């Protein structure tokens, strides 16, 4: 039950002299700090952190947690984010000794079991992608994009080619152009066809000998499979360029079709989406990439290699590819998240992976069909794992915008869909129910949307009405940014 007492900040709970954690006295002969550390480096006092008891800390954060919507507590149909159920077995297994306590610089001989798991994960990711070489270093999808673009740049450099352009459709996630710019490429945005698909003619016009990479999300951000993906890939390959598949929407196609089979040369996964990471209120994720064989020597290291001796003894080791682009981060990767992805894939197996994708598609099409009488979905007769509805008609007819529907849904106990993305659909409401929701939940959600569309527009402008806060003022936040507390540590 939510605590209705006013929420305080840690700094407001603080009282001088209170403590939570205490430590034993030093069991070694003690020296004064001044004997060990030059006086000019020493602080006169420790940082002014709040002073709290352990019960303070626990009640504070447990109460804060109840102010969140989450997958554990609510239907969370946030398009493009794949908010599927996060299995509890993953949490226990990821905390086992021999896994959670392995230091990155331990000798490989003492972590063969962990390396065996990660090696198998590497292999499974290659198989699902249809791309044989995998690096698990990137910490998130955006870092995966950047890594792959740097791999592409190194490949072209090695071939003596100087290619400067990265092309992407208008519907691309913001990370695509941002990653391309950071990798030093010029960004070329491609207009879409009237149906929101890749425009092959437009693509032909921009692709030339200076084009390094075409970055494309497939299924695209409308939840539709690009019908001309193979032809688009051919255009790139004919010009000597590479095709990058943004794997944000892999949940729709895993086990059904593979990026490597539809023309992709490189891709990233979002393990926190497709393989149920979980999302952690904004991370950590893991963004491993898969690439074709001719790109494998450029991958960041280390990757895991397996050798089998003549006597059958298997050994796993960490190696860095010969022409590696170097590191995009310190240490191996976001292992904790990769492990959860591994546990998930080992639970599902090949049939389970395909079943999950099919049920995600079934759920999305069902929700789309149930909403169809009340909410227009401009693009696509059938969708894959998600669809983008438009509130344009209801805005015109009743003055109800996508934002109002989203905010009011919160009152009904549903997280809002993604709104105003992709930009190609006006008043967009992007809905991704995922496979781990029941028909009953989808029906209840659709009923809530129907009810909202009949509500008074003025009432909706002030939604939500029942949450811990009403709509926050973004304007005030931006005009006068307050980005930390004003200390009010008390005696």
């Amino acid at each position: 039950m939510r605590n209705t007492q006013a929420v305080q900040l840690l700094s407001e709970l603080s009282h001088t002299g209170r403590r939570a954690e205490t430590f034993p006295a030093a069991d070694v002969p003690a020296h004064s700090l001044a004997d060990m550390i030059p006086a000019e480096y020493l602080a006169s006092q420790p940082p002014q952190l709040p002073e709290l008891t352990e019960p303070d800390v626990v009640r504070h954060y447990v109460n804060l947690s109840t102010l969140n919507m989450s997958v554990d507590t609510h239907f969370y149909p946030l398009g493009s984010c794949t908010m599927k159920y996060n299995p509890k077995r993953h949490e226990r297994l990821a905390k086992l000794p021999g896994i959670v306590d392995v230091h990155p610089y331990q000798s490989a001989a003492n972590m063969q079991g962990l390396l065996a798991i990660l090696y198998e994960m590497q292999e499974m990711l290659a198989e699902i992608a249809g791309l044989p070489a995998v690096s698990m270093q990137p910490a998130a999808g955006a870092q995966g994009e950047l890594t792959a673009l740097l791999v592409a740049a190194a490949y072209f450099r090695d071939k003596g080619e100087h290619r400067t352009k990265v092309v992407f459709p208008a519907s691309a996630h913001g990370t695509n152009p941002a990653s391309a710019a950071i990798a030093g490429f010029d960004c070329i945005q491609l207009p879409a066809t009237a149906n929101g698909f890749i425009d092959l003619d437009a693509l032909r016009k921009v692709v030339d000998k200076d084009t390094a990479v075409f970055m494309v999300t497939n299924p695209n951000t409308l939840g539709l499979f690009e019908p001309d993906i193979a032809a688009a890939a051919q255009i790139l390959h004919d010009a000597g360029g590479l095709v990058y598949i943004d794997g944000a929407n892999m949940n729709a196609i895993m086990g059904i079709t593979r990026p490597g089979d539809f023309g992709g040369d490189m891709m990233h996964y979002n393990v926190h989406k497709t393989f149920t990471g979980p999302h952690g209120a904004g991370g950590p994720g893991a963004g491993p990439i898969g690439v074709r064989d001719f790109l494998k020597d450029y991958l960041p290291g280390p990757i895991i290699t397996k050798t089998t001796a003549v006597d059958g003894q298997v050994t796993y080791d960490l190696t860095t590819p010969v022409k590696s682009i170097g590191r995009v981060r310190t240490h191996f990767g976001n292992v904790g998240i990769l492990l959860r992805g591994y546990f998930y894939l080992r639970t599902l197996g090949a049939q389970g992976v395909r079943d999950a994708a099919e049920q995600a598609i079934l759920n999305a099409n069902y929700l789309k069909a149930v909403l169809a009488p009340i909410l227009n979905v401009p693009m696509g007769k059938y969708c894959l794992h998600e669809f983008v509805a438009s509130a344009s008609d209801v805005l015109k007819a009743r003055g109800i915008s996508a934002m109002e529907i989203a905010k009011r849904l919160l009152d009904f106990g549903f997280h809002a869909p993604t709104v105003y993305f992709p930009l190609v659909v006006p008043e967009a409401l992007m809905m991704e129910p995922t496979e781990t929701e029941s028909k009953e939940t989808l029906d209840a959600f659709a009923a809530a949307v129907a009810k909202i569309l009949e509500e008074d527009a003025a009432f909706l402008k002030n939604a939500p009405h029942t949450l811990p806060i009403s709509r926050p003022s973004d304007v005030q936040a931006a005009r006068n940014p307050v980005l930390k507390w004003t200390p009010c540590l008390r005696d």
Partner: protein
Amino acid sequence: MAYLFRTPQQQTEMLQTIGVPSIDELLTQIPAGLQHRGLLKLPPALTEIELEQHVRRLAADSDGASTRTCFLGGGAYDHFIPSVVDEITGRGEFYTAYTPYQAEASQGSLQAFFEYQSLICELTGLDVSNASLYEGGSAISEAVTMAMRSTDRRGNVVLCGGVHPEAVQVVQTHVLHFGTDVRVAPLVNGVTDHAALAKLVDDQTAAIVVQDPNVLGALEDVAAVSALAHQQGALCIVAFDPLSLGVLKRPGERGADIAVAEGQSLGIPLQFGGPYLGVLACKNEFVRKLPGRLIGETVDRNGKRCFVLNLQAREQHIRREKATSNICTNQGLMALRATVYLAQMGPQGLREVAELCCQKAHYAAEKLAAVPGLKRFSTAPFLKEFALTSDKPASHWQTKAEAAGFDIGPCLNRLPAILGMSAVDRDRAFLVAVTECRTKDDIDRLAAALQS
């Protein structure tokens, strides 16, 4: 078993509502020639009990810090993690939530991250902290590109040789293709050679990066580095160890314009290198150049205090190729771990941990340097980590330690090259880190093992 709800009857009803005879009909938008025939070649599905047995068997074939005795350092440390950290971050309301884009439904995460930013500001003595980056190395790299934007200098960046060499590689990966020269100042006696450093800095230098304690554990003269940077109009980036600030002066008091850290020591388990936490804080004047998410305080329509994602015009989902960074997913749950950890520690706890590490590390340095053949690599002052060397390869000592159940290192030759250390130095030197979790008995037994 894919956590599905389907029943044959419901599936039929759903297909009827959609108006198709089968799921295959929905898949026809994927050209038949591109569809995968048959099932993927994945290992067989396991039930929960089988998975548990399988993973436990493999985990038993790995030995981590809880079964071995860990003196390993190099940027990741076996510090104590209070139980409350796991209890709080294990709550589904936190770890199964998404990025807090819907503020009304995310006040828990938003306030926690606002508190994180506030705590990092207290810790660093700087004005603004973002809501987290991936880990220490890419935080340095983000700070460097932020400095390039802030100073409008693209010519070069200068890194002190004590910056973790993996982080040096990360910086090189990120900026070399801009034509920016990455200059590294050599170490002398395990710390920055300030004369050599001064020669590398010029009016095209965007920033100097100094790590303190540095990769060898030695303490650097940060104030001298920042003075040099400011003389040349460059920014000073300080990579710090959060726990060291229990005893050391804060980066903001030593001239840092931007402070970054590997936040692993703030309640984050070792887990073979990640997920960790990239910390980044800066002076107010650079706030619009900050990469990553920022949480701000505001009021709702009833005037009630609340928190929102703020200044999003810097970010990729708005600014696309002109964004300050491509980062989207950050390390939210790790930032929450750090927040709970710091709340639990308080100023006294932080000070005690830092002091305990320092006392124990100094005892260990004395004890281990007394082992015949071993000596300190550098006489520079240190906090919790130091380098040892001998006329034998480091692996000689590491093998001895490992056989007795101790992990020491890394050997410096396991890391990329460090400027100012010869190949012979790197083959012979290794690190020893001592946290509050190690006892006098652990240290004595390690010394005995190396002596045997």
